[in-house]
């Protein structure tokens, strides 16, 4: 019950944050001309030709807060404006491009977290020994790689040298046809998930094949964070008094590390994992661009490039919501892992 109240409270916090973000970005758009700003209210290609009347209609020469109010009103009616870049309403653009990014995030995040935790705690348990040094070097190396270069390299090898073994894009053309045909129901537009739900093996394999390189690229670069964090968190945990107590009780070293130290060390890692997912959900611009994996990152970057204001605003809104939601999930996870948070402390 108190958990529900907690969630409700946190969702309510969404509002001021959204308010702040949108006001801020809206303020920036004020630097643009009314014509450009008019695109925020357009819902169809015809509308694009009608800009002067739109400027009239929505009073784009009126004071700031009046405009902001009008726009906000629009948003509540589900109209986020027109995305010039992809020629569709912003709302639909998000709906259209989100699945690709989610697919990447869903595959990459567990890989990053699990790998990071495994090697991080290994490194901590064997501090200053070869494992520790090797882990650190690999982590720093991964973090130092330019994402785009890694992507190009991987493509060069696995697409060029190995003749199309792991091609770019989300699906090969044959599968693309299959997926858009009537036989295949796109529940989520996340290809792997849909393939499973449709019990369609070939599509699943094809989708996975296209996912391998982008996921590897993203994971390699990001794993360092988690590894280092887990390592320092574990080291801190291993230095605590309860570890000595556990040893004094006669607990085997293996259990001391896994049962006593790790549970405590995971706590900060959870927070970071949440932010990691949020960041990935916002789209890995470079990876998506290189591998022609058209997701949110690709859309947002194209919008930024072409100064498509409504798209950028819509994207900002999306990111803000994502941020708060992720924070919420992380907080809830926190309560499950750390009883001090769950039960609110206090001496009886």
């Amino acid at each position, binding site marked *: 019950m108190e958990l529900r109240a907690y969630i409700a409270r946190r969702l309510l916090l969404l509002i001021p944050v959204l308010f702040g973000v949108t006001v801020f970005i809206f303020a920036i758009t004020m630097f643009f001309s009314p014509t450009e700003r008019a695109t925020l209210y357009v819902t169809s290609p015809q509308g694009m030709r009608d800009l002067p009347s739109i400027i009239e209609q929505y009073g784009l020469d009126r004071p700031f807060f009046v405009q902001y109010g009008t726009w906000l009103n629009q948003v509540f009616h589900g109209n986020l404006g027109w995305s010039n870049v992809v020629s569709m309403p912003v709302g639909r653009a998000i709906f259209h491009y989100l699945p690709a990014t989610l697919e990447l995030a869903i595959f990459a995040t567990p890989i990053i977290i699990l790998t990071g935790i495994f090697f991080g705690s290994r490194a901590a348990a064997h501090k200053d020994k070869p494992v520790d040094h090797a882990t650190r070097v690999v982590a720093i190396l991964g973090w130092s790689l330019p994402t785009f270069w890694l992507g190009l390299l991987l493509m060069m090898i696995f697409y060029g040298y190995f003749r199309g073994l792991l091609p770019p894009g989300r699906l090969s053309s044959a599968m693309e046809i299959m997926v858009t045909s009537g036989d295949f129901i796109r529940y989520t537009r996340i290809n792997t998930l849909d393939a499973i739900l449709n019990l369609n093996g070939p599509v699943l394999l094809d989708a996975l094949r296209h996912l391998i390189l982008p996921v590897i690229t993203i994971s390699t670069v990001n794993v360092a964070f988690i590894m280092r964090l887990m390592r320092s968190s574990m080291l801190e945990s291993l230095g605590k*008094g*309860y570890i000595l*107590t556990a040893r004094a009780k*006669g*607990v085997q070293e293996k259990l001391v590390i896994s049962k006593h130290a790790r549970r405590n060390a995971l706590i900060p890692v959870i927070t970071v994992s949440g932010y990691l997912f949020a960041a990935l959900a916002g789209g890995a611009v470079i990876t998506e661009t290189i591998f022609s994996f058209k997701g949110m990152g690709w859309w947002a970057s194209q919008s930024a490039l072409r100064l498509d204001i409504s798209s950028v605003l819509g994207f900002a809104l999306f990111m803000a919501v994502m941020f708060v939601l992720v924070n919420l999930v992380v907080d809830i996870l926190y309560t499950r892992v*750390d*009883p001090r948070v769950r039960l609110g402390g206090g001496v009886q």
Partner: protein
Amino acid sequence: MKDLIKIRDLAVRFYTYEGIVYAIDDLDLEIRQGETLGIVGETGSGKTMTALAILRLIPYPGKIESGSILFFDKSIDQELELLKLRDDRMRSIRGNRISMVFQEPGAALNPVYTIGDQISEVFLLHRRRELAQRAKQRLDSLLSDGNGLAAGVKRPFWGWQRRIYDKIAKESHAFEPRLLGRLPLFRRLLWRMGYEAKLLTVDMLKDVEIPDAARVAVQYPHQLSGGMKQRAVIAMALACSPELLIADEPTTSLDVTIQAQMLELFRRIKVDKGASILFITHNLGVASEVCDRVAVMYAGRLCEVAPVGEMFVHPLHPYTKALLNAVPMPGKKLETIPGVLADALNPPPGCRFHPRCPSAMPICGQERAKLKEVSKDHMVACHLY
């Protein structure tokens, strides 16, 4: 009666970035069966290290350089060399035959597990056969008394469980139960071990006078007060009725009223359990309350060992005298010991205390004094004697 613990020529060194620290140097000490021995000294005197050495828990970068620690095992009437014991044998002694209570109860308890869980852990580690035996007995009564449909359905499961627990009761790490314990679905079969452990835990908590023990067992450390936490830690240490309980400054972090209660608890433990206690403290008053004999350490070396009454009435070593003198008393001028604590990296040659000793003689700076019995059961390491 044989000494429970016999320490001879113990040397513990720390290989740090800055140099070698001689934490314990040439220590000879005995802990007798059933006695409460106090080790008194300032910070850095090596008292905690002595305790950790007995349990072989000296942290990196420390190392037990040389020496021997003999533990008299009553069950086999043999002395065991603790420093040469195999790892798993040593583990079976820790928490079981020799256990330790640390200074900060808050730090000693793992914040993400309940008190009950942490104490039960000790039972699950060292008392598997007993737990299994109890579970088996419970199942026996279920099987014989059980009537009705529900019982009828569960009967085969009970039988199966009983067989498994029987195996554990005979051999604590029998193969079949261990295998089952690792398989996800079959793990549940062993739940009774945890259950019995819980029961024993609550009993233990009652033993250390924690009110409302059953409720406390499911609470987390942060929900308890300092005194309660310390009692819980003591419960954890006493769970398997150890022959030696090491208490490292158990009362230092508690406030005075709780301290008094704690000391009372220790006195009761002495009487009820008949265990030996190694009581480490820097507080002479506390030592005088609980200990039978007291040992005084300085800079990693033993200065004086004597029965408590004798020590306080006839202290022999200059350091001991200075310590007793330094106890603040109303009406008396506050005495301090001049000089600074011996540098751990570069200790003074000969007797470690000689730079600060009012009775220092030339020989004190050259060679250290050996431990000598000056009067009955009263040993000193000082050139004065």
